[in-house]
């Protein structure tokens, strides 16, 4: 189980502290698929990076299975059982898809076993297993390979930062199937997805809504999803802000 206790995150720009996340507390129990959603700029990706250890909170604590992991490195968190799929997957000159999957599992994997993970994300394994993870792969292909590496790592908590970003509609249909499949086999592990997509929200057990760096809603999908319809869009927020600016003039 992952638990955030009063987590805040600030950045310092031109001598000024700017708050990105304010006093966030929540729990992600095992056996659950949780989706964090909310408008752009609300702090969702920052939250994902805090959980993976890529950045450290300014204040507050992060606990994983009861252990305080706030000051733990990325490596130690990965070893403790946290997996992370990047919103924008990284390219590597020279490293092959097989290398990446092998490193994700941390074992001497056979290429047949590695292929299973590629098939699971809808890629024809034979065509991809020996490809370099470089610019010759399209954004959608990279994204699916990224997800395959997180499947291969089989973490107790798998975090996906906007898995739908940059992939086409056809790939998206498959992506939903991948998460539905993961949801079925979740057992003692848990999944955390950062997403805007209603179809991903639909397969969630719980939904957390972040807006302006604050946790504004957290509860079962059945309770939160109806409230979201039409209320959280970035467009609406812009309109609201513009109206406020207009009011100040």
């Amino acid at each position: 189980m992952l638990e955030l206790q009063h987590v805040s995150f600030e950045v310092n720009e031109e001598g000024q502290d700017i708050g990105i996340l304010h006093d966030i507390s929540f729990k992600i129990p095992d056996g659950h698929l949780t989706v964090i959603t909310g408008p752009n700029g609300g702090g969702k990706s920052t939250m994902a990076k805090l959980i993976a250890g890529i950045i450290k909170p300014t204040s507050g604590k992060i606990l994983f299975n009861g252990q305080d992991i706030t000051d733990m490195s990325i490596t130690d968190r990965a070893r403790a059982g946290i997996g992370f799929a990047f919103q924008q997957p990284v390219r590597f000159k020279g490293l092959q898809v097989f290398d990446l999957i092998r490193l994700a599992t941390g074992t001497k994997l056979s290429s047949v076993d590695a292929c299973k993970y590629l098939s699971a994300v809808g890629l024809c394994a034979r065509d991809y297993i020996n490809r370099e993870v470089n610019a010759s792969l399209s954004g959608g292909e990279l994204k699916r390979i990224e997800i395959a590496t997180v499947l291969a790592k089989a973490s107790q908590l798998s975090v996906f930062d906007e898995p739908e970003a940059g992939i086409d509609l056809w790939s998206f249909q498959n992506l939903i199937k991948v998460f539905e499949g993961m949801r079925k086999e979740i057992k003692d592990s848990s999944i955390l997805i950062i997403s805007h997509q209603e179809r991903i929200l639909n397969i969630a057990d719980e939904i957390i809504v972040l807006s302006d760096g604050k946790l504004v809603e957290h509860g079962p999908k059945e309770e939160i999803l109806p409230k979201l319809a039409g209320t959280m869009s970035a467009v609406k927020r812009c309109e609201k802000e513009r109206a406020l600016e207009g009011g100040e003039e």
Partner: protein
Amino acid sequence: MLNLDSVSDRLLEEVADLHKVPVGAFNIRANGQAVARNSTANIEITPKENGSGIDIKIKPGTKNESVHIPVVMTASGIKEIVYNDFYIGEDCDVVIVAGCGIDNCGPKDSEHDGIHRFFVGRGSKVKYVEKHYGSGDGSGKRILNPGTEVYMEEDSYMEMEMTQIKGVDDTVRDTKAELGKGARLVVHERLMTHGSQNAISNYRVDLNGERSSADVVSRSVARDDSYQKFDAVLTGNAACSGHTECDAIIMDNGRILAVPGLEANNVDAALVHEAAIGKIAGDQLIKLMTFGLTEQEAEEQIINGFLK
């Protein structure tokens, strides 16, 4: 079996993947002397009359055969220049494995300068593999200065894989090629320098024939206080195409100078160069760390992949 010491055996394995006497034609040189030589029905190896090297003559139509000509040096203080000429007849398809390993535990410099000339006959296909390797903890330097000249006739193809990953203190590598009509040259260079090593790699490729093409790609890593210079000039003298690429990673206080040069002397010459130098991207390290690798392990994997 060859009667060599264990250090020479290890060097042979490093530079030519040889565990025993190779199959086919070979010439093994150790500490300045030929210690084993074998010609086959199609590939004849003869020493030059003045003793400065060997001639390798490959009969026209020779296919699926290989030549191994590794050099090992284990004695400190040897300095030699060897001239090896390869005459490859028409319509051949052969693999040539060269390479030099120096183990220098002594106080004097050891140097091997291998000058290889290739005359590639019409329609022939040649794969050339060259590995350079140094070991030993003596204060004497391990120096390798390979010179390679390639003369390619009509519709011939040559692929060169040149690797120097470890232990060579000083190297100046000069590669020169002249391509005739329809000839194609593909070069993959892999280089890693560490400590206070210096490596200079010069390429001069003249695309003289119509439809000739060249692809010269270098991937290199400079660590510690080492220095590398990559200087590749492609000259298009006909309707041809050429591409040169230097892709380099710098670490610690490593320094790299890339000087890509293109000269088009014909309006139908299409020449491209690319050069990129930088440290390992932070995102790449983070990605592998999210698999549970330490930063150092991640770095190693990225470099191994890059130089693969």
